[in-house]
């Protein structure tokens, strides 16, 4: 049973690391700040959660496990907030490749206020 848990934990950590790697590549390759925030939130968060679950399965000691649970929960809560704030700032300061936008509903709104 413990060998099974060890293997499962290792697999999850590996999967999580792969997702985090994809997120890092996305940060480099995607064209503008807004697109990069996608990479910084989804695969990064999911990757971290997988690593956390994997480590919890391998450690199996309560003291560290609960800390890991907190790490995962706070990551899930805070990552979207960061992405939202960075994205908002990026849009307002022109960090968006407008040639890559199919449509931009925010452009009509931003005309009068705040700019």
């Amino acid at each position, binding site marked *: 049973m413990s060998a099974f848990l060890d293997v499962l934990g290792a697999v999850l950590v590996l999967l999580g690391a792969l*997702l985090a790697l*994809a*997120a890092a*590549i*996305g940060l480099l*390759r*995607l*064209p503008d700040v*807004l*697109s990069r*925030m*996608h*990479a910084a*939130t*989804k*695969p990064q*968060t*999911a*990757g971290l959660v997988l690593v956390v679950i994997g480590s919890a399965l391998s450690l199996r000691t*309560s*003291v*560290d*496990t*609960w*800390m890991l*649970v*907190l790490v995962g929960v706070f990551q*899930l*809560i805070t*990552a*979207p*907030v960061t*992405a*939202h704030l960075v*994205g*908002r700032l990026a*849009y307002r300061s022109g960090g968006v490749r407008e040639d*890559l*936008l*199919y*449509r*931009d*509903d*925010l*452009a009509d*709104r931003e005309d009068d206020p705040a700019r």
Partner: protein
Amino acid sequence: MSGEQRGVFGRRPRVLRVLWLTLVWVLLWGTFSWANLLGGFVVAVLVLVLFPLPAVTTGGQLRPVALLRVVLDVGRDLAVSSVQVAWQSVRPGPPPRSSIVAVGISDDSELLTAMLVECLSLVPGSVVVDASAEERTLWAHVLGADDDAAVERFRAQVARLEADLLRVGVHRVRVEPASSGRAEAGTDPRDDPEPAEHRPHDSVPSREAGP
């Protein structure tokens, strides 16, 4: 048991805050002991006294089962979207085109807006760029949305998520300063007609019309 829990859930947000912070404290220490519990309680109360949060009112109960469904749905969507964005990141070829889409929200509750923003950032395709509870609108950047069909798909997804959150009842939780004005406006129509009948200038013409 569950009815009592819902009562705490619905009517005593401050109790919930203390419980949550105490739980975080105990989890941080990693072991349960009465000393930890007591220490966590003291720290929780201290934090909430020193950094008070705005009071909220709840007009009803939150539904735990519906909440669990949203959590599971978002979890599944997070898995899907992670793989999707990971692929969009590493695939060869030109960078993906995207759209910024305005989506209307049916309720101006702050908590509903906040939870939509949180969830939408984790589910496939979207990061919220701007949101306004007063205007009942949020603007999301949808990665890879390069035709109208994709935009409509995203709108449908938001509508589904919103319906799920409304089923939980999050729109009934309101931040107090904003809600007190709304609550008065809500009761006004019922209170107004009575004083209007006793207004002096209303009775004056009737007295004049009498003789």
